[in-house]
């Protein structure tokens, strides 16, 4: 079967792995700890495609929302 890269699909929003400093900044801005972030499985096809590891935080940028661009963050878990 042909392997499909999900990141190229038009319905898949942009996923970016955050650097550790960026994560710290994010946690500081929202005054939260890591365990209060929404989760995403490491087995998620997009997470696999961008090669993110459990424990890392990804940023998901959705376009076409009422606000034009909506950003959310997810902690990768096993």
């Amino acid at each position, binding site marked *: 079967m042909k392997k499909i890269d999900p990141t190229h699909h038009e319905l898949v929003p942009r996923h970016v792995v955050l650097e550790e400093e960026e994560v710290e900044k994010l946690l500081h801005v*929202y*005054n*939260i700890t890591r365990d*209060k*972030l*929404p989760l995403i499985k490491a087995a998620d096809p997009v997470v696999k495609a961008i090669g993110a590891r459990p424990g890392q935080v990804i940023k998901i940028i*959705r376009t076409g*929302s*009422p*606000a034009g661009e*909506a*950003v*959310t*963050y997810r902690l990768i878990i096993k």
Partner: protein
Amino acid sequence: MSLKVIKEIKFGILSPEAIRKMSVVKIVTADTYDDEGYPIEKGLVDPRLGVIDPGLKCRTCGMRFGECPGHFGHIELARPVIHMGYAKEIYKVLKGVCHNCHRVLLDNEEIKKYARRLKEARVRDVEKQKVLKIIAKQAARRRRYTKNNICPHCGVELPRIRFEKPTTYMENTEKLSPSDIRARLEKISAEDAELLGFDPEVARPEWLILTALPVAPVTVRPSITLESGARSEDDMTHKLVDIIRINQRLRENIDAGAPQLIVEDLWELLQYHVTTYFDNEVSGVPPARHRSGRVLKTLAQRLKGKEGRFRNNLSGKRVDFSARTVISPDPNVSINEVGVPSPVAMELTIPERVTYKTRDELRSLVLRGPSQHPGANYIIRTDGRRKRIPANDEELRKTLAEELDVGYVVERHLQDGDVVLFNRQPSLHRLSIMAHEVRVMPYRTFRLNLCVCPPYNADFDGDEMNLHVPQTEEAQAEALILMRVQEQIISPRYGEPVIGGVQDYISGAYILTREGTEFSRREVEEMLCMAGLGVETSQDKEIWTGKEVFSLLLPPDLNVEYKNKICRRCTTCKEKECPYDGYVVIKDGKLLKGAIDGMAYKARSECKLLDKLVKDYGTDTGRKFLDSITRLILWVLGMKGITVDMNDVELDQDAKDRIDEVLQDGENKVDKLIEAYHNGELEPLPGQSLEETLEKKIMQVLAAARDRAGQIAEEYLGMERFSVIMAKTGAKGNMLDLTQMAACLGQMSVRGERLHRGYNNRSLSHFKENELSARSRGFVRSSYNKGLSPTEFFFHAMGGREGLVDTAVRTAQSGYMQRRLMNAMQDLKVEYDRTVRDNTGLVIQFMYGEDGVDPARSDYGKAVDIDWIIHKHMEAV
């Protein structure tokens, strides 16, 4: 004292030791009271179990009736019995454990593997449950092997175990007694128990079998004294009597060395009584009955169901300071108000503290007492003692009023202007409970303004509503700020008004503001006066147009332009030059062009005018506008009149002929299609059978014919007919309804198909079998005005029934869906940083709704109305 924080709660099973330890008395006799009426020691109402008589003290804790919570006792069972609530768990354990070596039926490797998986899943409960389920399945698997069904540890052959509901277990053909089972469970090691889902610290497997039975405190099963002086015991007590009697007989028989058979019979009976003590509705067990034949209400029955402890007493409590009665309409109360009947106002009270400023006022209320309206029911002295104000002792009232001093509290009657919460069930959204201001009125119904009917979904065909009185100033202020009706005009759901004009207020506004409506100055002054509107009118203007009268209610700097409901959607809009009153222009608070209709201020719709008033001028202006327009229109309608009759849907002969022709033409086309089908000349549409193609084409032809008939009817249905005014302004009904009355009903359908079921190969016996014509398959050619033929009437009823069933199913389904959504989202909250978080602080959304916009403060769901800003800017330039 230092604060302790609860970190976790662990649930376990009561062990026999724990039952004995918490017990204050071992119950041995089945008797309750002796001949003198004193409770018997070691009996079922032993004084150590708690107090139920006022005046007595508890022998265990020394507290009085009402203070003592009651204390458990226990019964030592002569033989162990199965706890019917754990029957299924016992079966699972028995299946998964060897009867010989009492090890779990997994080989060492499996044990290791699952123990590890269980450890990994430890914190995550869902995961853990999954693993446990797999273990139970894997362990029980060996028993079902036809070959090699041996224990992996001791190699003994494993018999099949069967569970016979409710409390019997069979090993091959032999019955396992509770004692045998308990003996097996006792020998399961702690490690193995953990694999079977037990936490051996708090729940050993053998605790699933009862050897000691807790006896509930008397406070949960109080006896009641009848008028005759005889005592009547609670159902639970009756059940406990049965258990003790049989327990005693069983023990005596065992001690006397009675034959095995008799002992087993009694044991079985004890099992029955213990089972029904817990649950008297177990399937396969005849329910225990009272002497009178009434089924006993035991433990499970107290908790279960709508009338059970959970739904009736914990989730749904009764409250004080509330009232409920029928509602009726009153256009003269403000949307912010609610008319409260005086008998209700004299029953509901608000505690008001006496100060130097309020003392004289409150004294006069006390003097008037509880039976005259602005009065008071109680005074509370500084030491907290309550004193009822007498209704018919004026002297005493005088002394009480004299006594009144700073620091006293008076529970005074509800008065005009007090804040109350008003509610109509089902409370589906937050607008189902709003804060109103009281207006005390005669008679016995709650009165409310018609504009607030939509959020409550109320009408006046016998609806009842509830009213609650907040008792503290804080509660009243909070209700007023957050829940006041005028603050809810714009719905938080879609950013449009939910409170606004309904029905006649819409058609009335049209009649007032349409081109050609004129009033003399006298009429205008009369209307404004009767409506109670203190609006200044110019003295030297003799003839007033309706638009001028309407403009009196608008703020002087209001500017709005929009296409209204009666707009005919011309290909090129002439805007301000519209000849049909279809384009509304309000400039500097003057209605210049266009008629006011549903588009201006109808509830639950895109109201251009009301929306603008509320958003640009504030809720106060919005409320005042609604209050005054409703009163004004009441008098406009009183003068101009509005009525509906059969002539509204009567067409002249010319129109009838044209409609008939169109419908006949349609039926002919259907006949031709059928002929083509029979001759095999019909071409099937892609992906459809010939029959499907025919049906589809027939439906199309008939729908087109009906539409055409409707169009013709519309040409003749002009604005001089009041029904048409109602439909076109959006007050009530639509043009489709009217054409169905005037021209033709059209095709009836069930599940989107033409009607065809009923008799063999035909819908009704009036037609030939397999007939495909329009008439025979539910096409109703008549109009309501003309009347339906018998077959048409039946077809109509068929279509109508489907509609009714659909609504019933839909409400049930959406109701359940809503309940689940509510339970899932009830503690989500928008924090001050605009993130949405749950009660544990977990972030759900980083920005509420992704754009952080509150729909109630938005423009039709958007943050800003760009079009209007540009429009305004262009005007200015």
